[in-house]
């Protein structure tokens, strides 16, 4: 099949969404399909710009493709008579982020009008897709809640699971992720001042901005946890990352309202349990409290308690790690399934 993957682009940034589209292309090709990736830069600087781009997407004409797989707003508006949606997320600023510090539209009459127009576009154009899948329960629930549109959850697998192995249960909690405010590495750092055992913390990832890094480093200093916390603040290879996973005690993944999060999946593949938070969103697709990790309240003391608990009870750590690994099989997070669904 000739398949066109359409997505919006944030030029010069490589994150989870870029990883997902690349993985999808590679796997579809492995399964014998011809694939081309269309990535269109998307700007949300003003409400008018967003409306312009919705119209632009509607006016694009695709010929010579048997199927279109769309991933994100507003690329999923591109018309095609054999379109399948694998939704990463909608334009969250006019949904769950409306009225929060993350929403940039003015909360006045014109802002609200644009918000309603965008929501209306979703209401009428999303159902054009022959099939609607969502990458996680959060994404699927939002679509149901705000647009009353049903979707099926289809969790994205890892691209190279063989890279992720178990080596040992070491003495450190590992937190790999881009360093920024919403990933809340600072919460993990603050937790370290309440730990009583010999547990350590390793954070790796490139900072989104210089400020993000300075803030995190200051927090380490202020809380006096420099001995127990190590930060590797530059990009590391997949191989290095896999090694840190393989030798850690467990992982911490504490983002605010994440859509999905590959950290959980990578940790599980290495038989490591994951500590996440009640408001972390998509991590709850995989993490089950007390079975393959912990879901705790977003405060440092509660997090510290779980860090200590895992350090002092290696038997529990091992049991939960094994359960974590089995979760991938139980939930059938496999490319065979994904390709099958997206090409049927």
């Amino acid at each position, binding site marked *: 099949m000739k398949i*066109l993957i359409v997505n919006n682009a944030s*030029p010069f940034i490589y994150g989870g969404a870029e990883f997902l589209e690349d993985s999808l292309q590679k796997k579809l090709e492995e399964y014998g399909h011809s694939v081309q990736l*269309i990535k269109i*830069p998307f*700007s949300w600087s003003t409400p008018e*710009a967003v409306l*312009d781009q919705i119209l632009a997407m509607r006016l694009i*004409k695709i010929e010579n493709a048997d199927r279109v797989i769309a991933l994100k707003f507003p690329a999923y508006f591109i018309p095609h008579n054999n379109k399948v949606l694998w939704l990463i997320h909608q334009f969250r600023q006019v949904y769950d982020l409306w009225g929060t510090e993350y929403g940039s539209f003015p909360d006045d009459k014109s802002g609200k009008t644009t918000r309603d127009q965008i929501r209306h576009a979703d209401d009428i154009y999303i159902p054009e897709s022959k099939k609607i899948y969502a990458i996680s329960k959060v994404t699927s629930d939002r679509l149901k809640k705000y647009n009353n549109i049903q979707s099926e959850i289809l969790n994205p697998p890892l691209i190279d699971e063989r890279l992720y192995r178990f080596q040992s249960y070491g003495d450190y909690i590992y937190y790999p992720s881009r360093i920024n405010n919403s990933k809340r590495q600072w919460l993990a750092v603050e937790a370290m001042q309440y730990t009583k055992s010999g547990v350590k913390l390793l954070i790796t990832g490139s900072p989104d901005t210089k400020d993000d890094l300075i803030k995190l480093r200051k927090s380490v200093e202020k809380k006096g946890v420099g001995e127990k916390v190590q930060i590797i603040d530059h990009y590391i290879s997949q191989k290095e990352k896999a090694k840190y996973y393989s030798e850690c005690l467990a992982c911490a993944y504490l983002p605010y309202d994440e859509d999905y999060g590959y950290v959980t999946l990578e940790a599980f593949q290495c038989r490591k349990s994951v500590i996440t938070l009640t408001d972390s969103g998509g991590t709850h697709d995989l993490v089950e409290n007390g079975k393959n990790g912990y879901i705790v309240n977003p405060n440092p003391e509660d997090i510290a308690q779980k860090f200590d608990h895992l350090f002092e009870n290696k038997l529990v750590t091992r049991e939960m790690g094994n359960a974590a690994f089995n979760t991938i099989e139980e939930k059938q997070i496999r490319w065979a399934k994904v390709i099958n669904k997206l090409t049927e």
Partner: protein
Amino acid sequence: MKIIIASTIIPFIDGGGLFIADWLCAKLLEYGHQAEICRLPFCPYWRDMPEQMLALRLLHFEEYGDRLICVRTPSYLIKHPSKFIWFIHHHRPMYDLMGSQYQDVPNTKEGLEYRQCVIDADNKSLFEAKKVYSNSKVMSERLMKFNKIKSEVVYPPLINEGSYYCDKYGDYIFYPSRLCQHKRQQLVIQAMKYTKSNVKLVIAGNPDNTTIVSLLEKEIEENDLTNKVTLITRWITHEEKIKYIAESLACAYTPLDEDSYGYVTLESFQSHKAVITCADSGGTIEIVTHGKNGYIVDSRPQEIAEVFDELFINKTKAKRMGDGGFDSIKSHHVSWDNVIKKFTMKI
């Protein structure tokens, strides 16, 4: 510098325009810039064009990248405060092919309005660009003629120029190109009827269709040229191609009215081989100078045969002109150094 390269594509069909975008992107990265390609599907059926043109115009690239480089038509409709264009061709059925069998719009009021819409949009968006480069003199002339837009020629270099070499000056003329009518492989075969020396001819390329293959085969057989002409009717690998060039006497490139000088010319020069082309071949004469790095002859078999013989009999001349070809690459500033310098120029 952070650079976005935009080009239009018809999905799953590779064209020259896209190669240029890919190569430019690879080279910008090599030179230490950050670069990304944005490929935009565009369906060139005339009735569908205005809507899609509006789509391009409605995109918002302005906050991304220090520069936008637009390649294939009409990607340059995208707005950007630092827009540069590498113009490789118009939507030709409404421009230079108007009035030929390739014209797409009907000569009705409606058809001509569609055409005018495309020309107006081109004029406006080309004019607002900070810099317009073209890939050949032919193209710059067309831009001036149809759009009154001044442009500077920046020749596209080969991507892997280091892989070309010269092994010897052998006994055959090599013509590597897609097999099709307008590349005129038939003309070169006919020339072989008139050669007096032992010069041979090797033609290689992917055929556009089966008709062209039987036509060329018939030409060879009927003129009893099977001992003199080798016809390879498939796509040859890069390694095969550079070896054929390296061991040839010289190359032939005799298309009818090409837009650009053609990669064949460049590949040949890079391998220190002279090029035989025709006066009506179009872009090739921008870089081929008669008697210096090759021959420009009338498109008649007898004349072509004459220069084939001349090169075969006088291999010192073949070498001298081949070396001249190599030097022309430099004197025409055909290099990535030049391309990168032009496209990353501060404004």
